[in-house]
């Protein structure tokens, strides 16, 4: 069964404010899809609707052929792993404990973790380069380490799809690239569909094969980076003067915003 996500006529409002307005699109499985758009364009809200954290007022989200709301929470957790915008864990759990919690959707109420669960935890921690951190308390880790642990936790759910909301927002460039490289590897090796909300258009252009541009809750365009990252599209959403060209080192599109200031 296909594990693509299809969004049909989705409308979501907080109180009376329409955050997402008539969104129709499909996230085809096996892709790395980034969602870009200005602040308040509805990136996070869209992710939360796909993660089933929020329920749309109108419209439907499908995972495969089945409506999202027809999945039980545990079924869904085996399909979709979510890495939230900021993970703030104030309790003294070790990194290992956190990742082990990711096995929850596979463990029945009166069961304890099996050998298989333990070995999957080890595998995902090694893959995310967090195995060395396993006995450290989560609240003692740096931002980048913590983010990798949270990704490992999501991977322990063995999802087909992983959703990430600004996973690199609080990280320096070294750790930004590290996280995005990791996602790319996971996409290649395990064919996991990766859906990321990102602020950084240049990184989006470098790492994704599909980009969705949102503006004020509406879909501007979705497609290949070359079709989306154009001056016309971006200016429509961001309302700023800019230069779009090809970076000669990375060979991907890059955007340089220009200042309106004249001194």
């Amino acid at each position, binding site marked *: 069964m296909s594990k693509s996500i299809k969004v049909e006529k989705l409308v979501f409002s907080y109180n009376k404010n329409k955050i997402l307005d008539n969104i129709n699109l499909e996230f085809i499985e096996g892709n790395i899809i980034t969602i870009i758009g200005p602040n308040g364009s509805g990136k996070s809200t869209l992710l*939360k609707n796909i*993660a*089933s*954290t929020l329920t749309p007022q109108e419209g439907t989200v499908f995972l495969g052929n089945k409506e999202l709301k027809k999945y039980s*929470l*545990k079924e*869904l*957790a*085996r399909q*979709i*792993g*979510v890495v*939230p915008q900021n*993970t*703030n*864990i*104030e*309790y*003294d*759990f*070790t990194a290992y*404990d*956190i990742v082990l*919690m*990711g096995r*929850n*959707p596979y*463990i029945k*109420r*009166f069961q304890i973790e099996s050998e298989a669960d333990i070995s999957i935890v080890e595998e995902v921690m090694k893959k995310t380069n967090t195995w060395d951190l396993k*006995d450290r308390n989560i609240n003692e880790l740096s931002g980048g380490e913590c983010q990798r642990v949270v990704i490992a*936790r999501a991977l322990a*759910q063995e999802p087909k799809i992983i959703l990430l909301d600004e996973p690199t927002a609080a990280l320096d460039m070294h750790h930004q690239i590290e996280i995005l490289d990791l996602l790319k590897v996971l996409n290649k090796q395990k064919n996991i569909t990766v859906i990321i909300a990102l602020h950084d258009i240049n990184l989006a252009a470098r790492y994704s094969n599909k980009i969705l541009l949102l503006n004020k809750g509406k879909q501007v365009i979705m497609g290949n980076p070359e079709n989306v990252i154009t001056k016309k599209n971006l200016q429509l959403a961001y309302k700023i003067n800019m230069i779009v060209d090809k970076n000669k080192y990375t060979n991907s599109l890059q955007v340089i915003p220009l200042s309106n200031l004249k001194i």
Partner: protein
Amino acid sequence: MKKHNYFKIFSILLVIVFITISISVIIGVANITVVDSMKIIFNKVPVIKKYINISGMQNSHISIIQNIRLPRVLISFMVGYGLSIVGVAFQGMLKNPMADPFIVGTSSGAALGASIAILLKLNNTFLGMGAVSIFAFIGALLATLIVYNMSRIKGKVAVTTLLLAGVATGQFFTAIMSFIMTLSTKDISKITFWTLGSFSGRGWDHVLIAVVPVLVGSGIIYIFAKDLNIMLLGEDNAKNMGVDTEHTKKIILITSVLITAFLVSISGIIGFVGLIVPHITRLIFGPDHRILIPASGLLGGIFLVIADTLARTIIAPTEVPVGIITALSGGPFFIYLLRKVKRTV
């Protein structure tokens, strides 16, 4: 969760429980020797009792140990056990270190119920429970029901609203209670004594009333230990990891309120235990609810048994409300621990 040796931890705790209970039964105004006390206690235990001969002892001594001290020690253990477990569950579920078993308005509801019964001078009993206890039970449930319904928005329990509604309802009920106290000044001392908690005159009837709700209730809460762990990562995250947070919150809330209402109707409002013991246990054993829940229960029981033994002996024959002892001893100890471990709760 550092890999604790569960077996070792709980063996040690159970031994301490046993020692505390034994010593507390021995200590008291009536001068009964250690050996005699032990004989009387073991005489109640099946199998062992064949080997024990208590025929030579005074009947009054046997009666004091069997019918007064032993049930009282057991009931104080159960109250400490139950309140601490509810405290752990609430602190975890609400992700709020200030939460205690009474945070959802239980105590003020119980206090109001009790003071109405005291004011009306009701003396009827039902299933061995006095009118004051029954009114307290009803008051506790009523207050929590109001709080619960206020905090339910579109079928979901909003944590912040729950906390605020608990405080608001609590204040409202306390105001009515204060008004009752103003109307009937001669009952003030009785009401005050009740709101500070006491085990004076509690017997086997009360043990029987409390034992089922406490054991079954704590068992139910323990079943959700793993869900509580995951919910510490935030409710949305927990949902994405397959935890039905709303279901968990409702079950824990209802179970906890029932446990608390039963306990409060027996002992009055014993503050502090349900707030401090969970924190102390967390400082010692870490945040894993699978250890935290049973360990807090046992430590809470031990703490309250000691506190009540002090309450009845410290200025005997006058009894001190046990709530005063728990606050006086628990507060400084907790601050000491907090400073020593230098961790945030």
